[in-house]
């Protein structure tokens, strides 16, 4: 590995690097965008449709003072990350199974390919009837949305492991079980990693829909109820936070890929 890739080398400089080098242009771009928005919103647009950035910021402060901001963020994040992790925990072993054994594939495949086209959103009401209005139904819906994406990616990853790797392992005397753990699973890691990244995005999609339809908290709830109270600035706070949290969790996943499981996802974490 190149020296610059070592975390202990980059850590002390990370913050400076963040501000000074490649990110500088991005930061300027964001600042300019916000400025244009602020000016346009003040001069040309009815604030009911698009409040200026400063008003949205004040809305966020107001929410924070009422102890609502962090609650909504925390609740949504917990549902997203919990459902996403649990869903992956179920999907990865299943994907490995389906990818490795033809019989398992034939048994499970029809269900996967039928169910994965039914959007989680279509199941919200049903899940609430089945599992109640509490956290369980919400977590399960995120799991549902996550699992199929991760499972299909995992199975695809297993399917594309090059035969030569398995053959090479066999010339070293590896058993079927050893080949599975030491060749198949590590070879499938990039696909699993990418699958989980995609699934993270759809977790956001699902949780907002669920929270709009049936919840007493969360960012989806915030956006939905703000409309009812004509608090358009609160609605924008919710929308902003979704984008921001998505960006942040995605970045965290990327850093996890680069620095924790780097050897397994050597290029998959580059974008």
């Amino acid at each position, binding site marked *: *590995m190149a020296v610059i890739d070592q975390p202990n080398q980059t850590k002390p400089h990370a913050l400076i690097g963040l501000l000074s080098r490649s990110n500088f242009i991005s930061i300027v771009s964001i600042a300019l965008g916000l400025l244009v928005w602020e000016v346009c919103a003040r001069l040309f647009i009815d604030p009911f449709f698009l409040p200026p950035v400063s008003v949205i910021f004040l809305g966020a402060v107001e929410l924070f003072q009422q102890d609502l901001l962090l609650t909504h963020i925390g609740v949504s994040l917990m549902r997203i990350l919990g459902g996403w992790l649990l869903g992956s925990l179920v999907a990865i072993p299943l994907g490995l199974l389906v990818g490795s054994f033809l019989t398992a594939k034939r048994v499970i495949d029809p269900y996967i390919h039928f169910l994965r086209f039914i959007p989680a959103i279509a199941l919200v009401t049903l899940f609430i009837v089945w599992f109640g209005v509490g956290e369980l139904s919400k977590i399960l819906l995120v799991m549902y949305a996550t699992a199929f994406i991760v499972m299909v990616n995992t199975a695809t990853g297993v399917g594309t492991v*090059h*035969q*030569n*790797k398995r*053959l*090479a*392992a*066999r*010339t*070293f*005397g*590896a058993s079927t079980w*050893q080949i599975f753990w*030491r*060749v198949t699973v*590590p*070879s499938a*890691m990039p696909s699993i990693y990418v699958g989980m990244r995609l699934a993270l995005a759809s977790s956001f999609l699902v949780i907002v829909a669920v929270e709009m339809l049936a919840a007493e908290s969360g960012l989806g709830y915030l956006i939905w109820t703000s409309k009812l109270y004509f608090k358009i600035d609160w609605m924008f706070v919710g929308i902003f936070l979704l984008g921001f949290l998505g960006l942040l969790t995605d970045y965290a996943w990327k850093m996890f890929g680069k620095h924790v499981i780097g*050897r*397994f996802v*050597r*290029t998959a974490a580059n974008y």
Partner: protein
Amino acid sequence: MTISIESVGFAYTTSGRTSPMILSDVDLTIPEGEFLVLLGPSGCGKSTLLRLIAGFDNPTNGQLSIDGRTVEKPGKDRGMVFQDLDSALFEWLTVSENVEFGLKIDGVPKEDRIRRRDEALSMVNLLNHGQKFPDELSGGMKQRVQIARMLAMRPGIMLMDEPFASLDAQTRQRLQNQMISIWTEIGGTAVYVTHDIREAINLGQRIILMSAGPAAGIKRSYDVELEYPRNQSDPRYITLLEQISKDIEEEVSKVWQ
């Protein structure tokens, strides 16, 4: 270990469909300790024959056995250097770890493992690149990792499929010499595939020229009675080179009429 191939024929079967015969009536005995080179035009079935010896595929007709035992599957007694540069290396492991992979599976204790790993790496001159990952290596270096990985296992039979194909002439020659000294040092039977006539003469004690496919067989066999390292200006070297060139041209022209 002696490899004996008796009237072997082979056709690939992929998802129920059988290809035309790739090899037919191949008869070849490779005695213990021989360095044999398989030479032939592209697509004639050199890799296929190597796969049969490795036990990746089984003959459609005939018998293939090692020391009297029929070959059915791969085993530790036969090491393989794959023709493809990338697909056979474990890209999540460093060069060192790739070489240790087989030793770990074999349960070799750590100290031994490290010694054998470093020994193998230094034989192919990669000792200083142990910490790199495969995607940080050149094509020739990747092939050398494959060779080191095989050497570390000390197989009785070494199967090598054009391992030096992606190298410049100078490096290639150096590695050919290195290959011969490794083989002299550790012994064992070597089956080496190439389509480069000079490489064949530099390496082989015996050269087997395969006929063009489909249904390829053995066209001719040449004994190379020159001492290592082979002197390319030796008249016998030149005569042999011309002879093989002529024979191979005959085969290639069949494919390209």
